[in-house]
């Protein structure tokens, strides 16, 4: 710092000649990254914005024809697309609720004197580090109606987890809960361990019941961090593709990302799918905004 001040005051000094200026270094360090992200994330989106107003199909050589807002009109009026949105909403609610209950529950259990706590926490963390595609694949084996260990363990006989259209979405959500509850647990644990001990001691002196202590001390103090976990998981569940795509091919589990994939790369409706991608994009940006707001809130504490 001091040097840069000297350099500015006296451009001919040794300090000014030595090395690059702070400004140059800052630009050298930051600009490549920003450029890279713009070229490979923003530019493609602008590129597809153009296509979203056309009837372009990447599978043919026919030139793209400008169709104005037709793609958007079509998509927003298409009942099948709305069904995909409903399915996704249902999936997000089931899996995020499940994760919060299981994850927070596990955190409450672990927030005590448990022997080997570090090892147990690490082992519990294993599922969320795995590949979602591969997890989907081996849960297929676990869900198998005739020899899957889930039916065997729960004594469900030949229960059809994935072949029954009404159950398949729950099966996918259950796998997601298995995989991501540890994430909620991890964040909840951080929140729980940050609650000052003296609050509990004071509550005990006041003879507060455990329910009262939980709702008046624990929950409010953990809430912001739990909120981050919820928003983050909502966003990720909204984007789910890999696991659901591999686990089930039922129309009842056709999440938005799967519909988008099929539209773009199996039906080759490039123009229409670009428009669809934009609709999804706007929703994601809205959720991201919320997420960052909460992240900054927690950071400030």
């Amino acid at each position, binding site marked *: *710092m*001091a*040097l840069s001040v000297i350099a500015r005051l006296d451009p001919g000094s040794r300090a000014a000649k*030595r*090395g*690059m200026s702070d400004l140059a*270094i*800052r630009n050298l360090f930051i600009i*490549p*990254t*920003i450029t*890279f*992200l713009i070229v490979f*994330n*923003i530019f493609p*989106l602008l*590129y*597809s914005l153009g*296509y979203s107003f056309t009837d372009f199909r*990447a599978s043919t050589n026919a030139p793209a024809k400008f169709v104005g807002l037709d793609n958007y009109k079509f998509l927003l009026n298409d009942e099948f697309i709305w069904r995909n949105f409903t399915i996704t909403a249902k999936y997000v609610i089931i899996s995020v609720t499940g994760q919060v209950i299981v994850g927070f529950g*596990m955190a409450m*259990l*672990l927030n*005590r*004197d*448990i*022997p080997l706590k570090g090892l147990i926490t*690490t*082992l519990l*963390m*294993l*599922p*969320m*580090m*795995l*590949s979602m*595609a*591969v997890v989907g*694949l*081996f849960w297929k*084996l*676990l869900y198998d109606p005739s*020899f899957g260990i889930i039916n*065997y363990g729960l004594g469900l006989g030949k229960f059809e987890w994935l072949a029954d259209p009404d159950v398949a979405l729950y099966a996918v959500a259950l796998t997601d809960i298995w995989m991501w509850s540890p994430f909620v647990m*991890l*964040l909840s644990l*951080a929140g729980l361990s940050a609650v000052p001990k003296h609050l509990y001691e004071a509550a005990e002196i006041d003879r507060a019941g455990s329910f009262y202590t939980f709702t008046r001390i624990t929950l409010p103090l953990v809430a912001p961090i739990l909120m981050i976990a919820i928003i*983050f998981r909502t966003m990720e569940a909204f*984007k789910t*593709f*890999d696991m659901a795509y591999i686990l089930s091919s039922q129309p009842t589990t056709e999440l938005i*990302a799967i519909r*988008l994939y099929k539209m*773009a790369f199996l039906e080759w409706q490039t123009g229409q799918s*670009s428009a669809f*991608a934009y609709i*999804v*994009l706007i929703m*994601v940006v809205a*959720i991201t905004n919320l997420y960052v707001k909460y992240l900054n809130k927690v950071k400030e504490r």
Partner: protein
Amino acid sequence: MAGIRTRQEVFFNRAAIAGVMVALFIMLVPIYWITSTAFKPRNLATTIPPTVIFTPEISPFVKLFTKRSQLRDPVSQEIYDAAPWWEQMVFDGGQKVVRSNKGVVRRSGYGQRFVNSLIIAITSTFLAVSMGTLTAYGFSRFKVKGEDDWMFFILSTRMLPPVVVAIPMFLMYRLVGLHDTHIGLIILYTAFNLSFSVWLMKGFIDEIPREYEEAALVDGYTRMQAFFKIVLPEAMTGIAATAVFCFITAWNEYAFALIMTNRRAQTAPPFIPSQIGSGLPDWTVIAAGTFLFLLPVAIFTFLLRNHLLRGMSFGAIRK
């Protein structure tokens, strides 16, 4: 108060330990199951009741890396199992051997996909972490106009659903010939991980006291020297943690790999599920492929255990 433990507390603690054990059991059973299936003989993989005790064998791994496991025709299981693994055979209607090339073993596609995964994940991790560290330093130490907005912009690129980005990228890659190339996937994964690496590294660098560098500057170091000789060594733990996270993300990625590659540069995640194919899936082989694929991640999770929380929250929550 802390020393005295009422009966009630002891009871609750024991109940909690029991609860944790149950949770741990449920969470680990699927992982145990895929691991054990990878070492089972084929006829024990799909039994009822499930086989828990068995003599482990490596035949699933042999089948995984050789061509024979790739047979697509529905084959009667007895014929399949009776034949030695090194024989490449073509079956007719699942009952009779039509052609048998004794002693012919070909490599299956798995090894190549695994190597592809390694090349792409390692290269993209290296790029994302080095660029991310520099950028994080820039944001951490210098005044940047609209810093919060830039950081939000950087984060938002990570939040895009892969398929949304994949549609235009697919068209552009086809145009410039990057479709199904290693470089193509490396670029995509670098972009994907870069935002994460900037956010995480910024947290780590913010924690290094500025005084270290300022002392070095006073001693006659240039800013660059101070960065490379003072800041980088201090940030090494953070860099390692970030690298492992980026590696895992790139290693596990499925959607881009599915869309952008089909053979030459395909990574393992889209390849393993495609092996189920039609007919009778050999779950031991799939389990073996899965096991090998998950193994590096499991090891990394243990190495990373103290940084998991931080990585998962984009560096916002520290412990």
